[in-house]
């Protein structure tokens, strides 16, 4: 890719209109992140249909803003009311809430903001520098390697996301099965359309995603609601100036903690299936381990906030590395971005760098802008978000439900898509209740079509002879890696089970 494309792409991003979209996205992300129960994933799922009318770059810039804003926004209720707005903010509550309870809520939330922006910026730099060379490598891969890579992605995700490998596999198989609805890729014959010709194109991506992620969670929250309003803490007006801000000395003191967190988040984020929650807890544990005063963790240590927020935010940029380099989503948010890309006629993957280079660098420019906006919006709107925390859930979830309906109707162009959304809302609720990882289901559903097509091409290339794989060393290595990964996950699970049963005996 030439330098002019890079400059042109960055130039496309740096326009007042895009800045407006990024600011709006960041503000919306922080707002929904601050609402317990509505994380950035649900916000992106709801927002995608509303962005269809915009040009690709402003639309993607807005969604990137929602993702980045949401990651920080989740820390606000975690710190203020000990109710994490997003699962990855749960680790932030460990030290954030005790610090707020000591009368320093502004210091705690500002440290979360600074650490979040630091971690996010680090992972964006890694994304920008690593994804293009990786894409060049990925372009050398044919259908055989692509098929093996998807098998590896399934092996990694099924084991890591759920409590049980078997249930993870069942969820992945169910996702694959749902992806077979519609015309089959090799022969073009219809499957499982049950008389509904709308299903010739397959189950609508937006309906399945919003149903499984957002609607099922809304039903769960509404069903579990016992009171209409949540209690929020007040931010005292008479705080000492040093308690209202994070000094440069305090920020600099956390530099190694944030660097470690950013590194952990970036490495884990680049591996498909490992979420930001794991990164946050791993970084927290590492910071506690490295600290000279580990006992202060859990009692309002600012280093604990820096560790968790830098790690969970670093996951976001790194999640896009497999998406942009090889076309495989690293997380549900990335998978949702795929549906946004596809809606705008863009096929994610290594060819994007060749065919849509300008857009990719526009996206990178928007990500850098979003980091700056996250810092600015977070600084000025903290008091407003802290009031939002006290909005009644009855209002939040009823509004979310009507937003989902409107969004899916606009995306699919009819009530059929909305009905599919409702069905998958029920499916998502049941799956989650029975311990099946809905995330694995969804990613398998996203990858299913590509998997069947590459499998079909692979068998044609190999002429049905599995032994011919020996001529494809990369594919073979990936398949071996898949088997090793699955084996390692089973052993790790057994060890954990054994250690947890020992703990139960001790206590």
């Amino acid at each position, binding site marked *: 890719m030439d330098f002019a494309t890079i400059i042109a792409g960055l130039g496309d991003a740096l326009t007042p209109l895009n800045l407006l979209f990024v600011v709006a996205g960041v503000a919306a992300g922080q707002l929904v992140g601050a609402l317990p129960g509505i994380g950035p994933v649900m916000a992106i799922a709801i927002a995608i249909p509303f962005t269809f009318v915009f040009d690709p770059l402003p639309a993607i810039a807005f969604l990137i803003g929602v993702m980045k804003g949401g990651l920080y926004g989740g820390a606000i209720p975690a710190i203020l009311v000990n109710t994490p707005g997003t699962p990855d903010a749960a680790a932030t509550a460990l030290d954030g809430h005790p610090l707020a309870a000591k009368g320093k809520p502004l210091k705690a939330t500002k440290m979360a903001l600074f650490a979040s922006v630091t971690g996010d910026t680090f992972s964006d730099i890694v994304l920008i520098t690593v994804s293009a060379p990786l894409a060049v490598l990925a372009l050398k891969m044919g259908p055989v390697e692509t098929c093996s890579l998807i098998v590896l992605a399934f092996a990694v995700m099924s084991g890591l996301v759920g409590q049980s490998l078997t249930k993870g596999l069942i969820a992945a198989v169910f996702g694959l099965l749902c992806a077979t609805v519609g015309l089959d890729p090799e022969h073009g*014959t219809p499957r499982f359309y049950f008389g509904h010709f709308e299903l010739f194109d397959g189950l609508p991506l937006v309906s399945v995603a919003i149903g499984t992620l957002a609607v099922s969670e809304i039903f769960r929250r509404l069903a579990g609601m016992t009171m209409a309003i949540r209690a929020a803490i007040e931010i005292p007006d008479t705080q000492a100036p040093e308690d209202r801000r994070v000094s440069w000395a305090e920020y600099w003191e956390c530099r190694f903690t944030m660097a470690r967190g950013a590194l952990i988040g970036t490495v884990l984020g680049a591996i498909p299936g490992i979420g930001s929650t794991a990164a946050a807890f791993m970084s927290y544990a590492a910071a506690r381990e490295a600290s000279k005063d580990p006992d202060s963790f859990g009692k309002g240590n600012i280093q604990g906030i820096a560790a968790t927020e830098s790690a969970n935010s670093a996951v976001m940029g790194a999640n896009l590395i497999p998406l942009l380099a090889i076309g495989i989503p690293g997380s549900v948010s990335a998978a949702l971005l795929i549906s946004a890309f596809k809606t705008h006629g863009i096929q994610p993957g290594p060819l994007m760098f060749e065919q849509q280079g300008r857009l990719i660098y526009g996206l990178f420019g928007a990500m850098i802008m979003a980091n700056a906006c996250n810092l600015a919006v977070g600084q000025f709107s903290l008091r407003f978000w802290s009031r939002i925390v006290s909005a009644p859930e009855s209002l939040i979830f009823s509004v979310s439900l009507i937003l989902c309906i409107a969004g899916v109707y606009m995306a699919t162009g009819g009530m059929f898509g909305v009905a599919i959304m*409702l069905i998958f809302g029920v499916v998502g609720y049941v799956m989650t209740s029975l311990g099946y990882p809905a995330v694995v289901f969804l990613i398998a559903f996203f990858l299913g079509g590509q998997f069947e097509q590459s499998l079909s091409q692979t068998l044609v290339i190999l002429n049905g002879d599995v032994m011919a794989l020996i001529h494809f060393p990369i594919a073979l290595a990936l398949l071996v890696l898949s088997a090793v990964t699955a084996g390692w996950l089973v052993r790790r699970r057994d060890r954990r089970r054994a250690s947890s049963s020992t703990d139960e005996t001790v206590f």
Partner: protein
Amino acid sequence: MLNILNRLQGAVVALGGVVLYFFVIPHHTEVVDYGWVRPQTLPAICAVALVLFGTIDALFLTGGVSLPSSEAARAALFVVLTGGALFAMDRLGYLAGAFALALLVMLTVGERRPGWIALGALAAPAVVWSIAVPLLGRTLP
């Protein structure tokens, strides 16, 4: 009780795989006699995998389940409410259905404050409609 439910859901998955293999796939896919990956190939693999993993799950109890009956019943009520609202939207339009859905949901969860109800059941659907139809130029039912 939860263990029984856990075993039962594994058995249901396995049974679903059997039904899929013997009844659904033959009736809802075309028979093609050429090519390596035929229309029935991947669904059949999925069906066999469901039988296998469902049986393992039923026999060896992996993972946990959390499905309190009272919560599930309330969730079912919200599903029915949403389904009814979608029917109303199809017949009477988005605004009528959304007003009714938001109002019923808020009342069902115990919200009684007129201000919040007005905001959720009247203002919010109107704002969503205003953004979608006049502003973005899209259609709603």
